[in-house]
């Protein structure tokens, strides 16, 4: 039944152009944590929901930074959107990822969805559908480390780490130590897409 190859396959002959190094990435996450705290009045009644794989890692990092800055404990959940995607039949079947509801649920709370890269917006649309099944949040906002443009749906992020203009044939990779063994954001071009 083989799952689709994950986008973290070896890079092969592709060229890799660095956009953020480890320090810049850490500062970006710090800034996003501050912005979320500011916009949510100290993360009052707020939960972070990460979209696997790297969105979930980022959500945990943001929560850790928010705890370090203001001593708040923001619940973190993980939401796999695969079963809600509208493009399942365009590709080989995908392996599912983890889903964990945040402690206390999401109903009547402010949900901040967290993902690594915002591109077509289809993952976010799937996430909104999946969220609806978990409960009725007071509001949903979106935090992404990288916005690379090329939206196919009317979706925009509330918190953006970095806006990066890209060509559609390029790929933006967010590498996080917990998953990839290093911290960086890179653009890949010329490799297999």
């Amino acid at each position, binding site marked *: *039944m*083989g799952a689709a190859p994950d986008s973290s396959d070896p890079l092969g002959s592709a060229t890799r152009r660095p956009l953020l190094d480890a320090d810049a990435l850490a500062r970006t996450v710090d800034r996003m944590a501050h912005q979320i705290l500011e916009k949510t009045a100290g993360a009052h009644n707020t939960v972070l929901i990460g979209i696997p794989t790297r969105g979930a890692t980022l959500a945990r990092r943001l929560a850790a930074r928010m705890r370090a800055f203001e001593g708040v404990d923001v619940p973190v959940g993980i939401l*796999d959107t695969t079963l809600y995607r509208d493009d*399942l039949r365009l590709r080989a079947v995908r392996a*599912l*990822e983890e*889903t*964990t509801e945040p402690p206390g649920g999401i109903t009547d709370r402010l949900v901040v969805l967290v993902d690594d890269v915002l591109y077509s917006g289809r993952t976010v649309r799937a996430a909104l*559908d999946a969220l609806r099944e*978990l409960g009725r949040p007071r509001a949903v906002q979106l935090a992404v480390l990288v916005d690379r443009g090329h939206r196919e749906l009317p979706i925009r992020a509330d918190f953006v780490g970095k806006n990066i203009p890209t060509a559609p044939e390029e790929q933006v990779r967010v590498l996080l130590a917990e998953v990839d063994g290093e911290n960086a954001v890179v653009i890949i071009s010329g490799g297999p897409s």
Partner: protein
Amino acid sequence: MKHLLSAADLDREAATLVLDTAAQMDAALAGREVKKLPTLRGRTVVNLFYEDSTRTRISFELAAKRLSADVITFSAKGSSVSKGESLKDTALTLEAMGADAVVVRHSMSGAPHRLAQWVRGSVVNAGDGTHEHPTQALLDAFTMRARLGRLEGLRVTIVGDVLHSRVARSNVLLLSTLGAEVTVVAPPTLLPVGVDAWPVEVSFDLDQSLPKADVVMMLRVQRERMSASYFPSPREYSRRYGLDATRMAMLAEHAIVMHPGPMNRGMEIAAEVADSVRSTIVEQVSNGLSVRMAVLYLLLGGAEVAA
């Protein structure tokens, strides 16, 4: 993968993917009020049941519905089959109606394999004669992994009517793929010819194999498939091969007792064993739903695969 006809179709990677997917399905629906996913919207699943079944039929039907597929359940009674329509003609009818998957149970071993040659959609074997029942083996493996944390090196003792049991055959195939050590225990008359070639140990003495088992799987005595007398009397069978409270006490502390259902209480399994904390019989049913959702998702959830 296009069809699921035999537990032998699954290598270790594919089998593990099914089990992992089932666990994620569980997590995706845990604690939900509305247990529904939009994943297979617009796809049609036909349940084609030529043989009586309660839990498997309902389980597949519910699994398909939870994934938002359109489900048609078709049992031989009350259909054109009772007017003498052949499997092939029924298959062509389903084909014409555009079934994306056919879940088939049939009293003849090999019927799902034939069906797979006639229809364009995916075929899932939901039990064929005394041959195989791969989703049962998957849900059993899922239950073992959930209860005991692993399958590799697990000692599984399968007891009873191995001869007529598609559950035993599929379990032996899948469990050996996943690295478990299987022992089958049965009276010599209820072991199939060629069991020596199976990747199992064979024993005729239940009491001897109980203390070292991590899992004891009791099989139903399938009287409806027995045309001759395979053992002197039910009481005699029960005394030698039934699991009662005294025998259960011989099991290791952590060992679990499984049964694919439906049970003959008092025959192969005593009521106090079936209802004990070691028994996973009710869990097996709910795990069956998750595993069948996983199978349907993996067969139908991506781009169409060539046969």
